[in-house]
C-alpha cells in the first residue's frame, strides 16, 4: 500500500453540535477508509442526519474537525465541499420538483462544469460543448439507476421510490469521491430495498466511497464494510457488521429492541 491510500477519505475528530440546549452530537470521532461502504445506524434523533449535514457543510459544527482527504472542510460553504467531491442525498426528498428528471441530474453536474455568465449568455462554443456533456452524462446516470424512461417527466410527479433513485442519480452526476446517503431506502418496499442494495454495491464498484444512514438492518449488515453506531449524539461503537452484532452495548440499546 502506498502513502496516499492510507489517508482515510473522511476523518471526523471530536465533532460536536448543539442546537440551543440540545446536544445533537457529542465529541464524535471516527474515520471512513477509502473505497468502503460504511453505515451509520442509531435510533431516531440519534444525530445521524446532523452528522451528515456537518460533513456536507449545510450546518456548521459547534466544535471539532472534519478532514476530507486530509484537508479540513468544516469551515467551507456547502457548494465548495460539493466541488471537492462530496455529494449527498436527503432524508426528506429534496428534488427540484418542478424541473424535469433530466434537469435535476443536470444540476448535479454543476460542480463539474464551469461556463461562466458570459459564456452562457453568449452561448460560446465551450459552453455548448459542456452543455452536451452535461446531458450525455445525465442520461448515463439516469440509465445507471434505471430511470431512463422517466427522463422528461416532472421530478415531482414520480412516485417516492423513483424520487429516491433520482436523488442518487443527481448526486452521482457530480462524480463524487464520497457519497452520503441519508436513509435512501426509507419508505421503500422490500423488493425496492433489495434493488437499492444492488445499486449501492454497483456504486461502490465504481470506486466511490459510501457513507450510508439506514434503518433497514438487513441492508446495513449485508452491505456494509464498517458500521458506526450513534446513540443520543454519542458514538456508541464502531466496527464490522459482525462486531457490531455482537457488541453487548449495541444489542442493549438498539438491536435489543427489535428482537
Amino acid at each position, binding site marked *: 500500500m502506498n502513502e496516499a491510500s492510507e489517508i482515510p477519505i473522511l476523518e471526523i475528530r471530536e465533532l460536536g453540535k448543539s442546537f440551543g440546549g440540545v446536544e445533537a452530537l457529542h465529541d464524535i470521532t471516527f474515520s471512513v477508509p477509502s473505497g468502503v461502504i460504511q453505515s451509520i445506524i442509531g435510533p431516531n434523533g440519534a444525530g445521524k442526519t446532523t452528522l451528515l449535514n456537518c460533513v*456536507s*457543510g*449545510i450546518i456548521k459544527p459547534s466544535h471539532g474537525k472534519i478532514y476530507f482527504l486530509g484537508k479540513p472542510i468544516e469551515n467551507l*460553504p*456547502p*457548494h465548495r465541499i*460539493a*466541488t471537492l467531491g462530496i*455529494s*449527498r442525498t*436527503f432524508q426528506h426528498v*429534496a*428534488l*427540484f*420538483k*418542478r*424541473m424535469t428528471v433530466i*434537469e435535476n441530474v*443536470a*444540476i*448535479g*453536474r*454543476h*460542480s*463539474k*462544469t464551469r*461556463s*461562466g*455568465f458570459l459564456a*452562457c*449568455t*453568449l*452561448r460560446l462554443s465551450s*459552453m455548448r460543448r*459542456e*452543455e452536451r456533456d*452535461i446531458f450525455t452524462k445525465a442520461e448515463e446516470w439516469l440509465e445507471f439507476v434505471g430511470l431512463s424512461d422517466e427522463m422528461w417527466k416532472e421530478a415531482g410527479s414520480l412516485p417516492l421510490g423513483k424520487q429516491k433513485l433520482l436523488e442518487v442519480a*443527481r*448526486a452521482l452526476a*457530480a462524480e463524487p469521491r464520497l457519497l452520503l446517503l441519508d436513509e435512501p431506502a426509507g419508505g421503500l418496499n422490500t423488493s425496492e430495498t433489495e434493488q437499492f442494495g444492488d445499486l449501492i454495491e454497483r456504486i461502490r464498484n465504481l470506486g466511490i466511497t459510501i457513507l450510508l444512514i439506514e434503518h433497514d438492518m438487513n441492508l446495513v449488515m449485508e452491505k456494509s464494510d464498517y458500521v458506526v453506531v450513534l446513540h443520543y449524539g454519542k458514538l456508541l461503537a464502531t466496527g464490522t457488521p459482525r462486531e457490531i452484532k455482537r457488541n453487548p452495548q449495541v444489542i442493549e440499546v438498539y438491536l435489543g429492541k427489535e428482537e
Partner: protein
Amino acid sequence: MNRKNLPGFLVFLVCIGLFPVFATRISAIQHYLDVMIFGGIFGIVAIGLSLLMGYAGQISLAHAAFMGIGAYSSGILTTHFNFSPVPALFLGLLITAIIAFSVGVPSLRLKGHYLAMATLGFGVIVHIIFSEEVNWTGGPSGLVGIPGFGLGDWKLKSTLQWYYFVWLWVAVSILIALNLVNSRIGRAFRAIHEDEKAAEAMGVPTARYKVQIFVVSAAMAAFAGSLYAHYVEFINPGSFDLVWSIRFILMVMVGGIQSIWGSLLGSLFLTFLSNEWLQVFAELEILIYGIILFIISLFFPDGLFPVIFRFLAQQLERRYE
C-alpha cells in the same frame, strides 16, 4: 440560441420587423408605434425581472428605482456634464451595477418578506433622493432638456427609427435571457428558486448567483431607463416610484412568472392596457391593476397567459379529435 427557441425567435423578428409596415399605413393604429416603443422599453425591465423573480425566485420592489437610476444618470450626465448619450449610458450602467451590488450583497441574504421590504425601502429612498436633490434632478417637477439618443453625427430622429432601435435591444435582451435560462446557470437559478439548500449541496454557489442575477437584472432596468430618458427627453420621479415597481411585477406575473416571452408579452399587454384601453378609467387604473394582481397571484400563480394558452391548446385539440 438553441434550436428549440430559434423558430420562436425568428417569428418574433419577422413580426417586429413587419409591424411598422402596417402601423404606418393604417391611421387608426399609427400611434401604436409610440406605444410599442414604451412597451419595448418596459419589456426590457420585465425580462430582467423575470430572470430575477421567476427564475431565481428573488423578489425585487426596487426595479423602478434601478430604472430611475439609469434614467437620471443619463439625464444628469448629458444635461449637467455635457456627456454624449452613449458614454452617459455606459457610466449609468456602471453606477447602477455598483449600487445594485452593494444593495444586493446584504439584502439577498434575507429571505422572502425581508428581501421584499429591504428592496421596497431602498426604492423609496431612491425616489426621495430624486425628489429632493432639486439642483441635480430638477426635483418633483422633473429634469428637462435631455437630448435625443445618438452618437457623433448619427441621431435617432423619427419614431420609426426609435422603434427599430428599441426593439433591437429588446431582441438582444431576449437572446441573452433565453441563452442564460437554457444554460447551467439558468438551471441553477431555478434550483435556487425551488430548494436553496439542495442547490447549494449540488455545488451551486447560491449567494454569488443571486447577487449576479440581481446586478444583471438591475442593469437591464437601468439600460431601459436610459433609453426612456432619451426617448421622452424628460423624466420625473413619478415614473420611477413604487407603483411602477409593482407594475413590473405585474407584467411578469401576467405573462407567466417563469417565461421570458411571457414577460415581454405581459409588458406589451399592460402598456397597451394603460395607454390605450384603460384610459377611460384614468386614475382608477391602479385599482384595476391591484385587482388583476390579486386574482393572478391567488388563482394563477404561474401567470395568466400560460393558463390561457393551455386552455386554447386544449380547445384546439378537442376540435381536431
